[in-house]
């Protein structure tokens, strides 16, 4: 009797061919993007989206053509932070036009498809029973559609702001095997260190040799008046965590109250406060990232 592997093809259901076609379309769309970088956190509440938005803006300030995809389907915040939340996606035959953020950053987010502040992401289905079986797949398909069908144009770097938690990154890395790298965000607390260790271990397995490094967000409090930086959390050493897991430690970003204000106003902090300790930290991080990516104006080429 024939075994599963003896039978060639899928019996005509054509599912495999369609999945392969989806992958080909994704590859084609992203062929105009030099580098895709994921920003990941082990734990929620560490300011990952704030880091993504300000890092992307810092890169744009340094002359890169930048896009940001909010990959947090259920908790999107990037559109608000980049001030494009009122934009309604425009459909064309070639795809969907993204929002234009500050410095002409191209932005796509689930937030742009939702009607108001209170509407959650929910999907129509013949039944909501056993929804846990398919909800994750719907979210990954949505992410793939956003990557594939957004008219990104020519970009030097597309940032993916992933949802918190360690579980999504391996799936996204599987979807984007050509991803240039992943940046891990944590805060200097013992609990966050514990979670980020697990996330880093998973990320290293999913994307070997392409972990850009570990960034400490909220590393101290930057006084907006005297520009001194004080301890904000009882320090836990993210540097030790990075060393133990053999990934680069990329330094810290101090918390400045104006960061939160800027996010709420949809105007990235680094645009107007580049000279502050936090602003300079974002610019330094952008430079470090570009060295990792070997971007052309630093003498390097594509990672794809």
């Amino acid at each position, binding site marked *: 009797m024939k075994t599963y592997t003896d039978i060639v093809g899928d019996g005509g259901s*054509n599912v495999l061919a369609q999945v392969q076609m989806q992958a080909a379309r994704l590859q084609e769309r992203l062929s105009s993007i030099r580098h895709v970088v994921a920003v990941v956190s082990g734990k929620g509440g560490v300011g990952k989206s704030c880091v993504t938005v300000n890092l992307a803006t810092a890169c744009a300030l340094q002359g890169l053509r930048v896009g940001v995809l909010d990959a947090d389907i259920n908790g999107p915040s990037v559109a608000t932070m980049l001030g494009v939340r009122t934009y309604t996606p425009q459909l064309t035959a070639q795809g969907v036009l993204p929002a234009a953020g500050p410095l002409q950053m191209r932005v796509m987010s689930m937030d742009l498809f939702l009607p108001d502040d209170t509407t959650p992401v929910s999907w129509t289905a013949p039944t909501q029973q056993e*929804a846990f079986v398919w909800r994750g797949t719907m979210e990954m398909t949505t992410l793939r*559609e956003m990557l594939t069908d957004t008219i990104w144009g020519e970009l030097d770097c597309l940032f993916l702001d992933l949802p918190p938690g360690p579980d999504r990154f391996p799936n996204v890395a599987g979807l984007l095997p050509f991803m240039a790298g992943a940046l891990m965000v944590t805060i200097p607390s013992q609990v966050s260190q514990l979670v980020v260790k697990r996330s880093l271990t998973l990320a290293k397995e999913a994307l070997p040799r392409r972990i850009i490094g570990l960034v400490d967000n909220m590393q101290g409090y930057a006084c907006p008046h005297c520009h001194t930086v004080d301890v904000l959390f009882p320090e836990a050493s993210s540097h030790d965590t990075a060393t133990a897991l053999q990934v680069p430690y990329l330094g810290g970003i101090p918390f400045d109250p104006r960061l939160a204000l800027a996010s709420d106003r949809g105007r990235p902090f680094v645009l107007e406060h580049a000279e502050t300790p936090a602003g300079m930290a974002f610019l330094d991080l952008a430079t470090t990232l570009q060295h990792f990516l070997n971007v052309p104006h630093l003498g390097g080429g594509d990672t794809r």
Partner: protein
Amino acid sequence: MKFLCITCDEALKHEETRGPDAGVMSVIFACPGCGWQMAMYTNPWETQLVRSLDVKIGGRSVPAAPMEMLRSSLAQGRQGVPVPAAASDAVAEGGDAPQCPFADVVASAYNEIQEVPAAAADAAIAWTAEAEQRVAERIPSFVRAMARMGIEKYARERGYREITPQVLDEAKNIFMG
């Protein structure tokens, strides 16, 4: 997922896909060796799982529209974002649209296949209360969705606008011989 005819040691081939109807999708496979057919039914969440992959069983006849799955599946979307109509089914559409699961049987019995105008095919068929009751009483629930589709297809082909107990009798005589 693959299926094997043990008698012929041949892989079954996909013939057609029907539905979803009330969340139930019917996928028909046949053995190229002996012609034996089987139908696979998916329950609503299995159907939704297929849909969530943004694939159509049997293949697509037209490429997916931009962000088709997202726009068609979001329960509440933003005003101004068009909602595609064709994306909600997990089955092949257009030129590859499946035919009545009983079409081959009917055709071989009467040696005729009537062309169904598109408008007629799309028209809703009403069911009388008596016909609904009879189907509910006499047809097991797990095949009811597919039986209803077959009966409606039969009724459309003959230009009926309503399914009555008499139409059920006619269909039964043809389907069951």
